[in-house]
């Protein structure tokens, strides 16, 4: 056996998969050729070193990050679907502009700072509370919602947060997912901005929701996602109607909003 040929058999030799004749030929060669014997020893040492490498554990936020990316891409798909639904041909500059805006939005979402976890939203300033107590009528009005509030959607990201408040932990532990439609992962159907409320009212609100078996996910200290059946929409309006709120889209105030969906997702943002 030639030296070059012997080295082509090293992997099979290490795996113990050589045929009888090849095995004899190789071992005979290694016994009579110190250079190849040294090569074989080094080959074994190399394998031993590589096999002793340990893999690294994946980062804890790998899975929540996947859901965030899915949500961001879902938004892009929706924008594109909207453009297609408008049924007019875009000029190249217009298409480029839309693409740039979508990319910029994605970048902003990715770099938006996460709020530190807290317990429940802090109480509003006394001046706002007194304004309500004086009989101010809550008027639904469109208010901008922070990008992180609109798309910070993670299907089970909350499960990995050890600082979850007890209320949300109870929800996650006791209420299984109501259904698994893909669109629920992508973005909320409704955005509710509750401007003036106190700690006790928030707890009461969530307890009412829990009582109805709705699923609540705590995303940040003042953002919650609520999954409710479409049939519970009127009930939902009634509950949030007790607070000073803004609702988007406006169509969500209609009883038949999202009637083709079994489950609606509401992002509730406490200001």
């Amino acid at each position, binding site marked *: 056996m030639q030296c070059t040929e012997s080295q082509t058999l090293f992997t099979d030799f290490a795996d113990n998969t050589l045929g009888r004749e090849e095995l004899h030929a190789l071992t005979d060669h290694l016994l009579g050729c110190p250079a190849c014997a040294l090569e074989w020893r*080094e080959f074994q040492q190399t394998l031993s070193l590589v096999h002793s490498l340990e893999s690294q554990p994946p980062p804890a936020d790998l899975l929540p990050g996947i859901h965030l990316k899915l949500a961001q891409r879902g938004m892009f798909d929706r924008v594109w679907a909207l453009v297609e639904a408008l049924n007019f041909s875009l000029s190249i500059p217009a298409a480029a502009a839309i693409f740039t805006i979508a990319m910029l939005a994605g970048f902003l979402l990715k770099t938006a700072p996460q709020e530190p976890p807290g317990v429940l939203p802090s109480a509003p300033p006394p001046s706002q509370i007194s304004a309500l107590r004086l009989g101010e009528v809550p008027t639904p009005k469109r208010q901008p919602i922070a990008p992180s509030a609109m798309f910070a959607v993670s299907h089970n990201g909350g499960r990995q947060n050890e600082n979850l408040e007890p209320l949300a932990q109870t929800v996650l532990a006791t209420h299984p997912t109501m259904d698994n439609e893909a669109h629920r992962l992508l973005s909320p159907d409704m955005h509710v901005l509750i401007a003036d409320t106190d700690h006790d009212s928030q707890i009461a609100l969530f307890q009412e929701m829990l009582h109805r078996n709705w699923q609540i996910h705590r995303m940040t200290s003042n953002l919650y996602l609520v999954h409710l059946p479409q049939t519970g929409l009127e009930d939902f309006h009634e509950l949030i109607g007790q607070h000073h709120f803004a609702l988007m889209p406006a169509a969500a105030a209609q009883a038949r909003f999202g009637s083709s969906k079994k489950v609606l997702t509401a992002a509730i943002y406490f200001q």
Partner: protein
Amino acid sequence: MPYHEAPELVRAFRQGDHQAFNRLVTLYQRKIYNLALGYVKQEDEAKDLAQDIFVTVYRQIDKLKDESKFGAWLYQLALNHCRNRYQRLRRRGFFSNQSLDDPETGLNLSSGATPEKDYERQNTARLVREAIASLTPAEKEVILLRDLQELSYEEISDILDLPMGTVKSKLNRARLALKNRLKHFL
């Protein structure tokens, strides 16, 4: 790891069970993350790459014809992502600025009993990583799949779409190349 559960999880995911997707991610995340780390050698980049791979799994699961082949399909998809990302990063000079001395760049040797031993082992791990990183992409790929991911020849043959004999000969050449790069250390 119960990888035999994967086909059942894929089936459940296709039927709309998104918890099944989460479990698939949990099942494979360590392997995919380390595969990514083997290519890009930087933790944040590897995390981003692994996430992109699973996002593609989520969006393209309907393209998988045979649920029992999920593992091979996932690795094919992952390797495509890794190759593309590697090329893109290399064009941008990402690797030329990257020091392999950086302790966060991946695989470690099993922990030793004393700090001195640990230091020695970490140093050895760094040298081995450096040697693997210096291989050609094709050599590195087969070493990662066989020696670090511990896949069988049959699995590698499925993933790379190569006859098993070719996989073995490629692996042998890659290991010899690695041995030559580590020669001064052995």
